[in-house]
């Protein structure tokens, strides 16, 4: 069973990295969304979601990621995913999420893409 849900936040130069926990379900998604909203209020509009610790997602958790995408589209921000497992990557493709969010193999490449160095 998932214990206490925690989302780790790392602030970079003009972007923020949100690291999700082992199971991205409704509870974890809501926590992620709250942290995301706090960062939006701080002025961040570019986000990297690091899913290296996430082994399982469910469609309710992903629906919260779509809400984040919607908010960022309104603000001309960017949402980038990195460190996806194969099944999460496949899930995002099935849903069409990859048409609206970029995916990179790791955080370093995601940061490079945000800086326009890729």
């Amino acid at each position, binding site marked *: 069973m*998932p214990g206490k849900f925690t989302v780790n936040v790392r602030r970079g130069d003009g972007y923020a990295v949100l690291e999700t926990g082992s199971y991205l379900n409704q509870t974890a998604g809501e926590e992620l969304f709250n942290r995301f909203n706090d960062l939006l209020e701080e002025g961040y509009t570019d986000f990297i979601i690091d899913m290296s610790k996430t082994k*399982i997602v469910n469609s309710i958790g992903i*629906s919260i990621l779509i809400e984040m995408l919607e908010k960022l589209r309104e603000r001309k921000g960017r949402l980038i995913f990195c460190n996806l497992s*194969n099944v999460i990557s496949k899930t995002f493709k*099935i849903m069409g999420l990859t048409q609206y969010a970029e995916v990179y193999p790791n955080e370093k490449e995601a940061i490079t893409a945000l800086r326009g160095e890729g």
Partner: protein
Amino acid sequence: MTSRCLEKVIELTIPMEPNLELVAAEAASTIAQLMCFDEDEIDEIRMATIEACLNAFEHSKSPDRRVYIAFRVCKDKLELRVTDHGRGFNPAEVKPPDIRNAVKGGRKRGWGLKLIENLMDEVRIETGSLGTTVIMIKMKG
């Protein structure tokens, strides 16, 4: 079509409580490992199991608030039957999700069935006033 089924059936009942879909998912994962599915296939089976359970939790309105899962182990496939004793539904009335609308303020939920259909090799739904069974098959090899 003849299936080389060994007729090993493993049954599990879970209450419709938050996160108990993980119990079903772990059982599915263990059985799939024992059947020597590869890692990606195991993850796909696990995710489809979670989505089938969540659909039952959310939509069935089942009076007994339980999900009945049967894993039928065959030589060439794993068949999962996820059953609730709820009110059933009309699959033709299920509106397919659309990411284009979802990112523009539209409905963001309702992806479960689409994911199940894409993660598994064969999916059938038997539904009526006595409940719903989602039958999901993953072929080996």
